[in-house]
């Protein structure tokens, strides 16, 4: 708890001290990926429903925000809401699947869902502009989320991060959270004790999906371009999962720490080896893969677990 206070206070106060655009930009992205990893953690860490299709929700949010600007010329805040509602629906579908499938077969089903959306978004040219993607129009103002000031972005994303964090803390302390942990550890035993296991799982996945969509919508507005092959990719889903696992599965602050670590490492390795036209760009991903294999074997509690022990 103290660690979290320190982390969020540092992130919130940083814009007052730091003025370097690059650092501020990194901080915004770290917080966005931290939120997405935290949202993933609600389903993957607390409910134990490992999904590699969370990019589906992220993409829904990103497209909702972008299309609000391009097609309907309304505020992207509506896009945030629309994306969250759509993702809640898609999350309910995946939640329903989680009641029918276990383990790796659930994982494959989630990948299939994100692939359906990927193909849909990249082929439905009349509506989504197809695989070229959508440049998000920059319309200045807070209501249209056309904000050039990165400091403001940090505070907006920080608000979302706090919400994601508090939901996770709720899952750690409340009766519902304990029930969810029981479902994760042994679903049959939880059911036999009268825990509404199925409903809890669906709700957890739907909440996780909604937050992921909000991340997607804000990310689209911040970055200014939505590419279906990126926002719906399996790689993106893995990135959320990796940050959460690296930081600590089922811990509230872990995903944010994981995201900071992953984003820093990626930026550094890209700057070091990823010059234009260099094919060494894959290097950081090799490290990610090795990190994933090593962490789940030797430090399944992640960074937070390791910090607690020492």
């Amino acid at each position, binding site marked *: 708890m103290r660690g979290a206070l320190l982390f969020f206070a540092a992130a919130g106060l940083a814009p007052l001290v730091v003025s370097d655009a690059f650092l501020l930009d990194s901080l915004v992205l770290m917080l966005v990926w931290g939120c997405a990893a935290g949202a993933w953690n609600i389903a993957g860490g607390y409910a134990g429903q490992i999904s590699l299709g969370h990019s589906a929700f992220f993409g829904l949010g990103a497209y909702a925000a972008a299309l609000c600007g391009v097609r309907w010329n309304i505020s992207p805040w509506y896009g945030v809401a629309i994306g969250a509602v759509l993702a809640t629906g898609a999350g309910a579908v995946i939640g329903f699947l989680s009641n029918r499938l276990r383990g790796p077969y659930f994982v494959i089903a989630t990948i299939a869902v994100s692939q359906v959306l990927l193909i849909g978004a990249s082929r439905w040219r009349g509506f989504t502009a197809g695989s070229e993607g959508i440049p998000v129009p920059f319309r200045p103002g807070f209501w249209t989320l056309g904000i050039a000031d990165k400091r403001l972005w940090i505070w907006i994303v920080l608000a979302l991060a706090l919400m994601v964090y508090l939901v996770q803390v709720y899952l750690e302390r409340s009766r519902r959270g304990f029930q969810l942990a029981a479902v994760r550890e042994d679903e049959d035993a939880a059911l036999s004790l009268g825990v509404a296991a199925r409903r809890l799982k669906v709700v957890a996945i739907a909440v996780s999906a909604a937050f992921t969509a909000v991340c997607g919508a804000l990310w689209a507005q911040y970055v200014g371009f939505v590419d279906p092959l990126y926002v719906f990719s399996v790689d993106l889903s893995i990135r959320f999962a990796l940050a959460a696992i690296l930081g600590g599965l089922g811990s509230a602050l872990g995903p944010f720490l994981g995201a900071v670590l992953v984003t820093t490492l990626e930026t550094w390795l890209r700057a070091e080896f990823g010059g234009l036209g260099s094919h060494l760009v894959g290097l950081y991903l090799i490290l990610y*893969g090795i990190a*994933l294999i090593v962490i789940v*074997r030797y430090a399944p509690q992640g960074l937070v677990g390791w910090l607690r022990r020492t």
Partner: protein
Amino acid sequence: MRVVNFAHGEFLMLGMYAAFWAFTLLHADPYVTLVVAAPLFFLVGWGSYALIMRPIVHTSHNVQVFTTVGLSIVLQNLALVLWTGDARFVRTSYYTSVISVGGAVLNFAQAVAFLLAVAATAALFAFMRWSYTGKLMRATAQDRAAAALMGINTDRIFALTWAVGITLVGAAGVLLAPVYAVYPTAGLQFVLIAYIAVVLGGLGDMVGALIAALIVAAVEVIGSYTIGTAWKEVLYLVLFIAILVVRPAGLFGQRGSEAIGA
């Protein structure tokens, strides 16, 4: 084995690259490469099992998922760093040759790949069904603890099963190289279809998987004709999700078999 290997497609990709490099550097025909590559992939399979899979084969599914996903990321990007992301082609002299069977005209390389795949499937089926080792593999997959109590060296059986799987997928990659472009993420499109066929057919059911593969192929072809090639993947993915919702054990699987080992 009751372990889903998310790096399966990457071993297929490695098979395709093996065919490409043998063809480009040594001018070896892919069918010659196959003879050398198959035992090589067996060794690669055995090695990857000993190095990466052995310590986690008895842990939870989530650990297995992430370990194989990690392996998949490593292999994909190793290929990207070593061989760049360019799509490469194996242009054999018979690249444009076709053979006609009845009224149908088939690409030569595709026809050979088809025949060898049928032969390999039949051999694998016979092996799993009738050979003593095949019986040991099925017994170990059904109940590890009981198999170990019966004196089966389950660790060896796991390593062998894993290595056989890698050998077959590597060989498939070599066979596919003359037909499809080779690039670091080439495995994904094939392996997704493979997962779908396996789940549709019922896990651990080889005949079911074969029939399901034919169904997926039929859906793909009919879909391309009726609603266009752009949407054909959506069709079988939606079919896949629908079947999982209605009948998660697969079309021919035993009810409840999807939960075994969960």
